[in-house]
């Protein structure tokens, strides 16, 4: 890592600092980075299983680190997401949504992967800064984190009986 590169989780904290109302759910999952990121970055599969409101995502285009996808929520809403996907990093935005995800290996013998999630419903007011609705966001992120931990666990050991 050069001095110009920032740990993805730290990067997510910086991005969230620039979005009014943004909350962050952060946790260390007891699995290697490669396994955790394989779940998080699987936009057309696992992503829809751990993000509470997502039902289906279809990736339309990938060019370098740029990605464009069509998402449908379980309530039927559609979102045209555009953004960036890099190792350990995903930032997507639609007209009404912001989704940010980051993962980084935890150094040291205990290992594991530090994961952070942020995002929410965009507020479109002339606020001189990006903003999301602050209410309920923390509990949604917490639910997503719980589901993500379950999905990672299931892939490691098989689903619980």
């Amino acid at each position, binding site marked *: 890592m050069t*001095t*110009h590169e920032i740990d993805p989780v*730290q990067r997510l904290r910086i*991005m969230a600092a*620039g979005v009014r109302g943004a909350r962050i759910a952060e946790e260390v999952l007891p699995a290697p980075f490669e396994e955790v990121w394989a779940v998080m970055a699987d936009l057309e599969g696992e992503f829809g299983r751990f993000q509470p409101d997502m039902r289906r995502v279809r990736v339309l285009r990938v060019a370098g680190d740029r990605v464009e996808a069509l998402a449908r929520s379980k309530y039927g809403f559609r979102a045209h997401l*555009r953004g960036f996907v890099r190792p350990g990093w995903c*930032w997507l935005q639609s007209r009404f949504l912001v989704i940010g995800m980051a993962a980084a290996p935890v150094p040291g013998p205990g290992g594991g992967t530090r994961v952070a999630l942020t995002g929410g419903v*965009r*507020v479109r007011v002339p606020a001189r800064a990006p903003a999301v609705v602050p209410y309920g966001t923390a509990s949604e992120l917490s639910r997503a984190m719980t589901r993500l931990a379950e999905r990672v666990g299931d892939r490691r050991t098989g689903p619980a009986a």
Partner: protein
Amino acid sequence: MTDDRRDRGVALARAARAGNTLALHQLLDHLTPYIARICTPIALADGPDATQETLLAVFRSLRSLKDPQALYGWVRAIAVREAVRIAQRAARAHPAELADVPERGDPQLAADIDDVLARLSPAHRAVLVLRDVEGLDEEAAAALLGVPAGTAKSRLHRARMSFRKAWSS
């Protein structure tokens, strides 16, 4: 920095303030190397920490930036402040009079130019960075650091002399 790059940063800041988080994302990519270039020579080993703290401060208060055209001067001031603060907090800085820098022929002097840098206080290093990397005159550098212009000027002169000695040894 080229005018194109400067214009791009200003345009990204403007779009980010209008609510576009993808522009905010690109602004983060755009500003990180600029901030690291200021923080690293001041905070030395703590350069990455100083860079992160600067980015957090910049993003947290982006909405308070009244004129996006002033982006770089505003970011530069935050970067210097954070780099000096982090370097002092880490207690890695041992402010020493430049007279303490070893004489020519001293084996310690021959070791590395970094040694000379490390012997300067963070504020002295900040003067060097602002003047020689950022191209500010002594008065502007001193104002940004909150020290008298004469002090900044004499410290800069002595720091340069030390570097000259170090390089020619």
